[in-house]
């Protein structure tokens, strides 16, 4: 999957904005948004928020989780736990990346927030690499991926599933050899009937 497509999926999530214009309810296919009154926060899909922000029609309200102290907690917990912890929101990295791109000034201590997110990302990527490797070495048939986010999964795709498929194919061939050793006089396919000249 292309990261652009993951961003596309994340963009339909809601975020609060404070518009600087007046407009009635808009009937989007995705659902109604508005009404818009200057200074009054209203919830809209992220793609719309980004679009309005780029046109200077609103400012974004910082999501509760996009703050240094909150992310610090998240980071510390991620460090402590052996498994992946649940992030405060789905698509946290993708949403944050979008917001910080178009609305840095709307976010307090944006630089620190960025660093903190990068730290969390790195800790989780290290875990992910290790568990991917453990999974492959262990020759398992199933793996739990709880609390991993789409963009993180994507970072090991298609490599992880592809490697799994190749090992699977080698194993199947080996199993075939084992079976034919066990039942040595297995019948082989005859080509004779297709040899008609």
């Amino acid at each position, binding site marked *: 999957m292309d990261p652009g497509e993951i961003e596309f*999926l994340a963009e339909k999530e809601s975020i609060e904005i404070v518009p600087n214009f007046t407009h009635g*309810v808009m009937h989007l296919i995705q659902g109604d948004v508005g009404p818009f009154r200057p200074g009054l926060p209203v919830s809209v899909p992220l793609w719309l928020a980004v679009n309005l922000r780029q046109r200077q029609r609103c400012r974004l309200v910082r999501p509760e989780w996009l703050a240094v102290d909150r992310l610090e907690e998240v980071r510390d917990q991620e460090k402590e736990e052996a498994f992946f912890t649940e992030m405060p929101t789905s698509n946290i990295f993708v949403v944050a990346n979008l917001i910080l791109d178009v609305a840095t000034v709307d976010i307090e201590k944006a630089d620190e927030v960025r660093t903190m997110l990068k730290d969390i990302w790195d800790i989780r990527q290290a875990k992910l690499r290790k568990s991917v490797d453990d999974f492959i070495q262990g020759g398992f048939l199933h793996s739990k991926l709880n609390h991993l986010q789409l963009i993180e999964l994507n970072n090991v795709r298609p490599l992880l599933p592809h490697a799994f498929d190749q090992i*699977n194919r080698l194993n199947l061939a080996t199993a075939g050899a084992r079976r034919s050793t066990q039942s040595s006089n297995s019948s082989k396919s005859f080509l004779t009937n297709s040899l008609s000249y």
Partner: protein
Amino acid sequence: MDTIDLFDNSVNDGEEFEEELTAAEVLQKMEDSWLNEKHSPELLESKMEIVECMMEQVNTMEENLSRLKKGDMRIPVHRMELQRIKFMVNSYLRLRLEKIQSNIFHYTKSDDDNPSRLTQEEADFALNYKENLTEHFNSLALRHIPGVWESTKVVPSTPAPNLCRAVFVSVREDVPGVDIKDDAGKGRDDTIQLMKGSQHMVKYDAISHLVDEGSVQLL
């Protein structure tokens, strides 16, 4: 201009659905179908009724937009949403065509056990494509050498979806006791519990029956 009437988007024509769905719900179904089709190795049941419903919505909205005055703030907003939907619909249809073309001999063989998942339009296209390809093979190679070539009899076989492929799934509804068979005979057979909200990597054939009924979503 009365905006409420103009942009009322409840789905009136809900005959295909058991219950009436709002446009937003259909859109969500479109997204699920798109992702499933994107990550499934095989062609899934066609969701043309969702696609058609979505395209109808797009067309109606485009008509409505053309009636708005230039500079109306709603125009760029709605256009943006329409482009998002068109991307998803087109991508979904492209994915299916790509699967059909890449596995053309597989999807055009008649198989009583496995009814075709091709829509009528896809079936027409597939037949046309297969004839074109076969004629191409004939004119440049097969016609000039004796013997027959049958796509169903060659070894190794012509391309077909690989159902043992590993996929990522997110569980939407609890499914207790999904059997994972170890085809390699290494005794790794297992039964796993798919609990709502959990995510897994597993061979597609172990969960393929759960995709269409919606208890798991491919990621």
